[in-house]
């Protein structure tokens, strides 16, 4: 469980990136953090594995204050997938890349081998096992980065902008994959601008603006609240926009799922669903 208590954070340059953040993420929850550029999303999630320590206030991971644990120690529990995979790839082969973190955490060679194979299969990277990560495409590099984090099986997975640069097909696979991780009991926290992606996942949504949390709640409530979204410079999902415009017909306005929307419309039009 992650608890954030009255956290303020100021960068050494004097930028106040977080103000009065209070938040609790339960084990096994699925959370999406949204908000405009510079809202402080990345800054907030960097507190969850100790990369940043609050200037004021405390962050607790499973009841332990992050000030008292090293980043390596916290990372064992909280896996952080960075926005840009190019910031972490450095090994000669994909296989080595995935094994790197496992070596740091002191797994034995036999376990490392098993885990690497497992992670390669999981993300469909088996054919690149011996390839240099630098020779892969952007989307593939991102998957290698993800595999290298999942390999040590952290309880919490943080994804910073996971959908950037992924084609529709990969995005859909990523979504299924994230949902699957979550149903297996992992806590998933993702930072994203991709509202359609969030609508499809339907997690708990946290809206941030100018270093503060401006709203939180289930996706159906937040993503259909036009005023709230405008505050965070976000447009509602397309399906929601349609239903908001059809409000006069007496249709429900809190729709974020395309399949659900289809059902309601067909019902309304009297066609057999």
């Amino acid at each position, binding site marked *: 469980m992650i608890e954030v208590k009255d956290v303020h954070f100021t960068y050494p340059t004097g930028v106040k990136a977080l103000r009065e953040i209070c938040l609790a993420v339960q084990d096994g929850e699925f959370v999406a953090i949204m908000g405009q550029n510079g809202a402080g999303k990345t800054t907030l999630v960097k507190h969850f594995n100790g990369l940043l320590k609050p200037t004021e206030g405390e962050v607790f991971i499973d009841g332990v204050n992050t000030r008292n644990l090293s980043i*390596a120690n916290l990372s064992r529990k909280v896996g952080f997938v*960075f926005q840009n995979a190019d*910031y972490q790839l450095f090994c000669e082969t994909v296989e080595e890349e995935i094994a*790197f973190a496992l070596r740091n955490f002191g797994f034995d060679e036999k376990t490392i081998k098993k885990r690497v194979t497992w992670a390669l299969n999981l993300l469909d990277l088996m054919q690149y096992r011996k390839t240099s990560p630098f020779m892969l495409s952007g989307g593939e590099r991102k998957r290698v980065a993800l595999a290298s984090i999942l390999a040590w099986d952290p309880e919490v997975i943080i994804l910073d902008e996971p959908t950037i640069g992924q084609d529709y097909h990969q995005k859909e696979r990523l979504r299924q994959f994230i949902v699957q991780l979550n149903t297996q009991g992992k806590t998933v926290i993702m930072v994203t601008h991709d509202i359609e992606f969030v609508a499809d996942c339907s997690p708990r949504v946290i809206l941030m603006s100018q270093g503060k949390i401006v709203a939180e709640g289930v996706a159906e409530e937040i993503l259909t609240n036009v005023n709230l979204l405008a505050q965070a410079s976000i447009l509602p999902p397309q399906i929601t926009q349609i239903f908001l415009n059809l409000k006069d017909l007496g249709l429900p306005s809190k729709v974020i799922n395309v399949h659900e929307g289809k059902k309601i419309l067909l019902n309304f039009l009297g066609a057999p669903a």
Partner: protein
Amino acid sequence: MSVFEGLRFRRVSSPIHKLDPRVKFVYVCTAFVVAVMFNELIPLLILFFIQIPFILTARVQREWIRSMKGASLLALIIFVTNLVSRYLYTGHVWSVPLVEYSLGMTFRFIVLVESFSIFFLTTSPDHLSLALEQSHVPYELCFAFTTAVRFVPVLAEEAQTIMDAQRARGLELDRGNFIKRVKNYIPILIPLIVNSIRRSLQLAEAMESRAWGASKKRTNLYILKLRGGDFGIILFSLLTLSIAIYAKRYILIPSIFAFLPI
């Protein structure tokens, strides 16, 4: 990274910022020459202190202190190396001149860092490029130089992000013996270098596609011209240099301990 911080230009307006960069460069060269001329502590101390008013006038003291902090480790190494080598060289006796000599060497370094950081803290990259161009340096070279300067902070920021990313994968930078610690930096250096090469290729492509170098003769919106303050600094530099040469030739520079009750 704090050394880089100290070289990072921030747009402030002050009499020092308004000076012609060429003049400031003359001043830095003067400081450099004078610092190299003397081994003794007293002139180097004087050189250190006469630059402080410039820093205060330019209101860059905070950044300057940060860059000095960044240089302090190197200064310490210089001090210790000098002290130990002199000690071994002069026959294993500790003496006051020994310490003074080492302090002098350290201050020579500090003065150099000080004047360079004044120069970089108060000169915008655009100004610098303009100054180079008007000194008839080929434009390609000016451009390469200013781009390099401009990308230093970007690189520093990127290094920080890469460190974060690798730490999140369990890398502990300050663990193990010396060799292990150096090796720990490999996962940081490789992405940093690869990204820099990628970025330079991208930059080249972006420039080509914006017709870089299409016209042979370039014109500038701003032209640098010497003004009152600039002549003042030139005068000051010449004066410092003449005093230094005079002192070097005709004055026996006393030990600082002649003035201190030791």
